[in-house]
């Protein structure tokens, strides 16, 4: 039998609702799970979640648009978030930013054409004594120098080959 994308999403969300309960406080954990698995929260997902929790889809959209770690737009497999707050700024984040843009060929806020990388700014990552710092998904890199950028990107590509993103996903979801 042919299972469409939206039917699969419906089943997946129903399972999440069973896990977190069908009350409003389950909304954020559900959205976080969808974000992790699919790199975005589609309008269909928002509609289904709204139905499951008995709220208006606009409520769901309002929450998605509020939090910087949730996104309605598709994001890359690896979301790189460079800290731009003052201590990392003093430590030289500007140079790291330029090198990231150069090596990925995209500007901040963009995703590479192959869907692998999204480049974003982050506000204070709490690594102020070891800046400049960035997050790649959930992994943190500190004391960055421009020459380290290439290695970090290559490491992601290698990781992707062995499906490490899926493995990392399991403990939280």
């Amino acid at each position: 039998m042919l299972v469409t994308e939206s039917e699969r999403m419906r089943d997946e969300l129903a399972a999440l609702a069973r896990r977190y309960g069908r009350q409003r406080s389950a909304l954020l954990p559900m959205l976080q799970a969808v974000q992790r698995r699919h790199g975005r929260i589609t309008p269909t997902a928002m509609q289904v979640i709204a139905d499951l929790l008995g709220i208006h889809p606009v409520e769901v959209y309002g929450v998605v648009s509020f939090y910087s770690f949730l996104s309605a737009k598709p994001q890359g497999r690896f979301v790189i978030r460079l800290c731009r707050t003052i201590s990392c700024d003093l430590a030289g984040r500007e140079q790291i930013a330029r090198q990231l843009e150069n090596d990925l060929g995209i500007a901040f806020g963009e995703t590479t054409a192959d869907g692998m990388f999204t480049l974003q700014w982050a506000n204070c990552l709490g690594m102020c004594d070891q800046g400049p710092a960035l997050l790649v998904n959930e992994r943190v890199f500190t004391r960055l120098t421009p020459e380290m950028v290439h290695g970090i990107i290559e490491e992601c590509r290698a990781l992707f080959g062995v499906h490490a993103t899926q493995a990392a996903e399991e403990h939280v979801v």
Partner: protein
Amino acid sequence: MKVKSAHEGPLTFARMEPEAGLQAALRKSRADVIAEISRSGLKGRGGAGFPTGVKWNLAAAARGERKFVVCNADEGEPGTFKDRVILSDYADLVCEGMTIAGYAIGARQGIIYLRGEYAYLRPHLEGVLAERRRKNLLGSGVLGKEGFQFDIEIRMGAGAYVCGEETALIESLEGHRGEPRNRPPFPVDTGFNRQPTIVNNVETLAWAACILARGAEWFKGFGTEKSAGLKLFSVSGDCQRPGVYEFPLGITIAELLKEVGGEEAKAVQIGGAAGQCVPRSGFQRRIAFEDVATGGSVIVFGPQRDMLHVARNFLEFFCEESCGQCTPCRAGNPKLLEGVELLEQGRCSTAYLRELIGLGETMQLASKCGLGQSSPNAFLSIVEHFRHEIMGRAPQAVRG
């Protein structure tokens, strides 16, 4: 990483006997536990400095079917990272403090609200919780105490600075946008799911466990009359030894700078983006609730730094992190940022600068929550102390 203590040797947290605080608490009545915390003079370590004993007392007295203890691990204040260190190295102590708080106010459930940026700490924390359940430090009949049931779950934030504000945090837990609520009612009677809830900073809970273990008198032996006890500081910026330090409250800025190798500093930002910028002339001031208050963030600016660039960075931060709910904060911060741009271009008149200062003061008074009220602080203190540096500058001046 550097973790240094005010006294010789490791941090106080590292020298605590495991579960001594919890055992001592469970031997006391609930009222006596709160009395001990009140007597110690412990105030909130997240920055606001609300007396912990008062908060616990109000929640204990409030009526509700289910009460909650929330550990605020949404450490987002620029320049603050001590909670990350505490959660990495002393998570048991934090859980112990939460369990004590649960006992004191009559809560059965604790929630750690962990910021999304710290997601990599989650497996470690889940491990600590599982181990505590195994040792009967969580669950029903904690340590054999009949009728006392308590467990802790972790909830993740999703990248929003404002959720460090306690009512915004509760909104977020309930599945809403992290927009602060009007207070009153306060969370101690109308908190998570409208139930009595205490929201305490990670460090506050760890100190609560230490106080129960060692006594209020021990804690009061450190610090000043109005700011009792020890405090962890997150030190970053232009100094030789950045890291986490433990000092008694009341330490002068000059003393702290000497410890961290930042004597050359031309200014220090105390309390993060929401705090204030203190120039050299103020280095004899004390870091304490009655003088320069802080949640522990200390950012050192060396002699070469452009203070206008610092002001710009903080304002960009607030423009991004304002929840947009109230006008003074939503509209005020972009206006101040525009003002900084004019100053950068050397095109800001004295009269307009006065307007900007007036706007900043209005934001302090008229914003709804702590974020908005404190957002102009850095700008105002930089304008006040470094006017000679930021006015009439040549447009091509390079950013520091």
